[in-house]
């Protein structure tokens, strides 16, 4: 295989593996704030136990998230050096801002969150929990800004020619608020909240099935199902907004998502099916006019088809189509699962419905797959561009790196990541089997003192 293919596989593999963890940190971080907030508000010790248990799970995901995240920062330079030279002036500032504003905040206050339970008072601890969650969200802001700039570049101009050409900032705020950044940010955050919420839901449902730790499970479920429902519903709204961005800014990408070859008014939305690339059409069930509505809020507006673009400017159609539809399908399934769970939980009959509990146990996989597929769709749909309309993917490669060297690092990191994943699952399972600690029902140290109001 050539350097390009290997480098793309390596970047895809390392970022996919990394992206198992940040959504869990963001989602669980937000959940921890709610859980600890509920403890401080109600004084109910079960919420203290809930917060302590999920903090331990959070620590596990955070550690691997940090360890695998550094790889990403290095990889821009090691494998995509020409890209780095070209965009450093613009893209680099977002990464540096992420380091200074988000990572320090997160890792600093994580110390208090994890080890400070007995050393600081309630308010300081709660403040630290908020700061960790805030830092996790803030790091999403900067990395999404950077990635969105690659999708919809703005606030820059090209200086120099040929090999020495590069993008330079003209307006920092246009870079930050580029046409797709905010909608994509909220869509990504909803995905992260879902990842955290459905993990909590899944484990709690498991305890109810096994009739263990029931009080703990009910308290966790209450928070988990509420966040899951709100986040999965918001996900549909932000998804709609993002689709409109794509229609406006990256029409070839939207056409690939839907396998739409001819520009069509009253364009149909494919509900299920596949792309017949040879005959340039989609086989499947479609809802007429829905794509026009999704893209332009109007059932009759024409949607641009792939034929408007030269073949070398089109993204891979089948892959984009499958990733996008996979994501959307899972997204709507999650809304249904969260609604059912929430409904029966409120009625108080959830523990009797074992089929639903089993469904909730497996629902943890939903956001993980949807998050991965969503990113696959976003990044594959951007092809053949590395920076949309400005730089093609092969142009960004490092000039001096050879295929066998990339193969070496790819094999090394595939091995390391499988090992890490196995250990992660082993330890996560161990924590879940062990369950919440009954000693956590009694706050100790300075936390035992009620906050002065």
């Amino acid at each position, binding site marked *: 295989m050539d350097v390009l293919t290997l480098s793309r596989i390596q970047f895809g593999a390392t970022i996919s593996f990394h992206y198992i963890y940040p959504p869990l940190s963001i989602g669980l971080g937000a959940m921890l704030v709610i859980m600890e907030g509920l403890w401080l508000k109600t004084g109910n010790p079960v919420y203290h136990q809930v917060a302590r248990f999920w903090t331990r799970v959070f*620590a596990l995901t955070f*550690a*691997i998230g*940090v*360890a695998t*995240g*550094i*790889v990403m*920062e*290095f990889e*821009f*330079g*090691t494998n995509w*050096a*020409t890209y*780095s*030279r070209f965009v*450093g*002036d*613009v893209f*680099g*500032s977002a*990464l*540096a*801002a*992420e*380091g*200074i*504003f988000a*990572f*320090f*905040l997160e*890792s*600093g206050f*994580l*110390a208090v969150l*994890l*080890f*400070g339970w*007995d*050393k*600081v008072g309630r308010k300081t601890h709660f403040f630290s929990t908020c700061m960790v969650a805030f830092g996790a969200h803030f790091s999403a802001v900067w990395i999404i800004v950077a990635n969105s700039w690659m999708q919809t570049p703005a606030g820059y101009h090209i200086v120099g020619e040929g090999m020495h050409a590069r993008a*330079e*900032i003209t307006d*920092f705020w246009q870079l930050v608020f580029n046409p797709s950044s905010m909608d994509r940010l909220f869509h990504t955050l909803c995905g992260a909240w879902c990842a955290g919420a459905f993990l909590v839901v899944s484990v709690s449902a498991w305890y109810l099935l096994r009739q263990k730790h029931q009080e703990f499970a009910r308290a966790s479920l209450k928070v988990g199902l509420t966040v899951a429902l709100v986040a999965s519903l918001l996900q549909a709204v932000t998804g709609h907004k993002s689709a409109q961005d794509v229609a406006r800014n990256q029409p070839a990408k939207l056409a690939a998502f839907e396998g739409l070859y001819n520009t069509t008014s009253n364009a149909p939305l494919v509900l299920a099916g596949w792309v017949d690339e040879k005959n340039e059409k989609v086989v499947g069930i479609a809802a007429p006019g829905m794509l026009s509505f999704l893209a332009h809020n109007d059932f009759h507006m024409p949607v641009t088809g792939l034929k408007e673009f030269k073949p070398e400017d089109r993204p891979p159609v089948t892959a984009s189509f499958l990733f996008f539809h996979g994501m959307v399908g899972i997204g709507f399934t999650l809304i249904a699962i969260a609604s059912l769970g929430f409904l029966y939980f409120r009625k108080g009959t959830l523990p009797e419905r074992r089929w639903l509990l089993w469904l909730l146990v497996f629902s943890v996989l939903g956001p993980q797959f949807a998050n991965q597929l969503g990113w696959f769709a976003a990044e594959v749909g951007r092809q053949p561009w590395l920076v949309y309309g400005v730089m093609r993917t092969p142009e960004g490669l490092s*000039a*001096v*790196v050879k295929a066998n*060297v990339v193969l*070496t*690092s790819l094999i*090394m*990191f595939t091995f*390391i990541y499988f090992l*890490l994943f196995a*250990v992660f699952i082993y*330890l996560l399972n*161990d924590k879940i089997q062990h369950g919440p*600690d009954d*000693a956590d029902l009694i706050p100790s140290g300075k936390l035992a003192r009620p906050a002065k109001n």
Partner: protein
Amino acid sequence: MHLDLNTIWFILVGVLFTGYAMLDGFDLGIGALHLFTNKDEERRVMLNSIGPVWDGNEVWLVTGGGALFAAFPNVYATVFSGFYLAFYLLLAALIFRAVAIEFRSKQPMRWWRQMWDVSFSVGSILSSLLIGVALGNIAWGVPVDANGEFAGTFLGLLKPYPLLVGVTTVALFMMHGAIYGVMKTEGGLHDKLRVWATRCIIFFVICAVTLTMAALLFVPHMAARVRENPWLFSVALANMLAIANIPREFHHGNDGRAFLSSCATIVTLMALFALNIFPNMIYSLPNPENSLTIYNAASSPKTLGIMLVIAGIGIPVVLAYTVSIYWIFRGKVKLDRMSY
């Protein structure tokens, strides 16, 4: 020396990497010393002495890398693609080290703990060594072609001088970590660490002297720099005084002051390194005209200005809560339910 934006960012990137060396230096050093004791409880105390802070310390490297990317994208691109395999090894070492800290005490089995103990220690030593070798190569000079691309090979990076810098870095971090450990522990482990610290100081001093001689004898452009700017001797002198003060304070039992001297040693070493390469960031050997400087490798003045605002807002805040977190976790380590 005219203080323009490029120079300011040269200094700021230097400050970030120096902060990294000073802070992560001691927890890498603790890692290097980890296997010297085989008692489980002592190993846990060692781990927990850095438990709340190692993660934040590593962020200095991440932010330093980010700042380098943003301020000097050409340096970032040339070094990272040129040192490809070395940096992937560094990443592997840092990953194993990080997850070992988190995973080690999660299971009681002996083989489990032994496996992660070895990962932690080997990862720490390898990280220190590779960081030192990378720095040594920059000091020695690396081959750069007319397009600013790295023109050497992986094996070409393993020259004696950079390797010596690597070993010295391991020694420096071990000394730094041992003194930190002395401050954070009590009882039997404290006494052991005291003995190790003394040996580490001797190890480091031998390395530092050898390295200085090697630099003056074999790195002609560094010696020339000192000849042209005699005031550089004052920085070298400050460095020597800082080093000499470490054993002095340590034997008087002023562990805190010994640690500060060790910090001062790191700061002055980094200052010497920076002053020797300035205004180059990558000194090109054998074609000095291809060197990447703070001007030909930098981002636009506009970006450097924006970043300065970001740094101006961010750094004071970061320093404020870094200090408060070290304050919250001050004193000797005591194991409890939350410990690693």
